[in-house]
């Protein structure tokens, strides 16, 4: 599919400071719409900080970033799906209630049963989320990937706590998203996943 040169995620001279310390500086990168980018770098290089900046949760110290959808296909889902380190799962609500809340809150009309089935969590719908294992909770947090495809997906170490089968399942979901034209930015340590279109190495972007 044809990609306009500046559709997708454009990052220009982005700098990040945390606690008075320069985390990274002058980061420039371009992730075309529908491409998959991996975010690499040692601990403390600012992978999570960059994702939080891109999600709009914290302002950058300097520089700009913008995301433009691909011209021909604005995807039906939300503009942005960000899944951080934490799962935002309430142990006192059932699996289905947890998912349904986030779907309703973000204005999605997706059916929670179908999304759970796609996420491989069928049969647990009515279980209080407190009974889930660590890996299952992570899968519940990531389940919104299988609702209407969002335009930009930011994932912070999505595979932490997932077993091999769950990792493979997530991987197939992500591949499917890319095929639909979703732009992906994933912070990851592992090398076992599919090859990215773009690699952003924060280890090189230090001041």
């Amino acid at each position, binding site marked *: 599919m044809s990609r306009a040169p500046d559709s997708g995620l454009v990052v220009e001279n982005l700098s990040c400071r945390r606690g008075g310390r320069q985390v990274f500086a002058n980061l420039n990168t371009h992730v075309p719409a529908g491409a998959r980018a991996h975010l690499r770098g040692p601990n403390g290089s600012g992978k999570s900080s960059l994702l*939080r900046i891109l999600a709009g949760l914290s302002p950058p110290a300097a520089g700009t970033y913008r995301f433009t959808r691909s011209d021909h296909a604005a995807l039906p889902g939300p503009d942005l799906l960000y899944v951080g*380190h934490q799962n*935002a799962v309430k142990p006192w*609500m059932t699996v289905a*209630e947890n998912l349904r809340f*986030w779907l309703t*809150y*973000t204005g999605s009309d997706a059916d929670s049963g179908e999304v759970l089935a796609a996420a491989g969590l069928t049969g647990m719908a009515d279980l209080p989320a407190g009974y889930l294992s660590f890996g299952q909770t992570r899968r519940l947090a990531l389940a919104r990937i299988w609702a209407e495809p969002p335009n930009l997906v930011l994932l912070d170490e999505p595979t932490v706590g997932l077993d091999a089968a769950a990792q493979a399942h997530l991987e197939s979901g992500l591949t499917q998203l890319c095929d639909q034209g979703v732009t992906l930015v994933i912070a990851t340590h592992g090398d076992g996943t599919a090859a990215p279109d773009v690699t952003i190495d924060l280890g090189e972007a230090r001041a």
Partner: protein
Amino acid sequence: MRRAFIALLARDLRLAIRQGADTALTLGFFLLVATLFSFGVAPDERQAAALAPGVLWVTALLALLLSMDRLFQADAEDGALEQLMLGNLPPIGIVAAKCLAHWLATAMPLLFFSPVLALLLQLPADRLPWLILALLLGTPTLVLVGAVGAALVLGARRGGLLLSLLILPLYIPVLIFGVAAVADDNRAPLLFLGAMLLAALALAPLAAAAALRQAME
């Protein structure tokens, strides 16, 4: 936006009911402390009646204060607050929904049990409507002001203690007019409580939203 507001309100109410322990603790504290007062300081009835408005207000206020530090804390700890901030509901709406849910889940039960305590503390029965009205006007202000404090101390060391230092002084005016409303046959304190509620409704969500936004950075 309205859908998101209602969803968040419903979620918080559902969590409050499921985790009944929080509400029960607050309510238990209110009942216990007020009862202690009735044993501790009131040997004769007339004295008890004079003390009753103050005791009721102070215990209700402390009970609410104890419950406030969880308002945003739980969501901040499990990452839900981040996700809430990324939705379509502006931070002011998040604060408003959470305050409303907190008032319904925590302050309403206090209101419900306050007549029982009032009678236990020898408050004359004809003052009961005034007490209910004063609590009805005063407790939302306490929750709103508390929300500002709760948002400010998110992630602070010894947040609970700091929260008391920040918001107890701001509770003083509510306490003064609240007690006056129950003690005297005078409309003015109630009007002041109403005015403070309006001011809190206008300003507190704004301030709490600003605090939440910067807590995310």
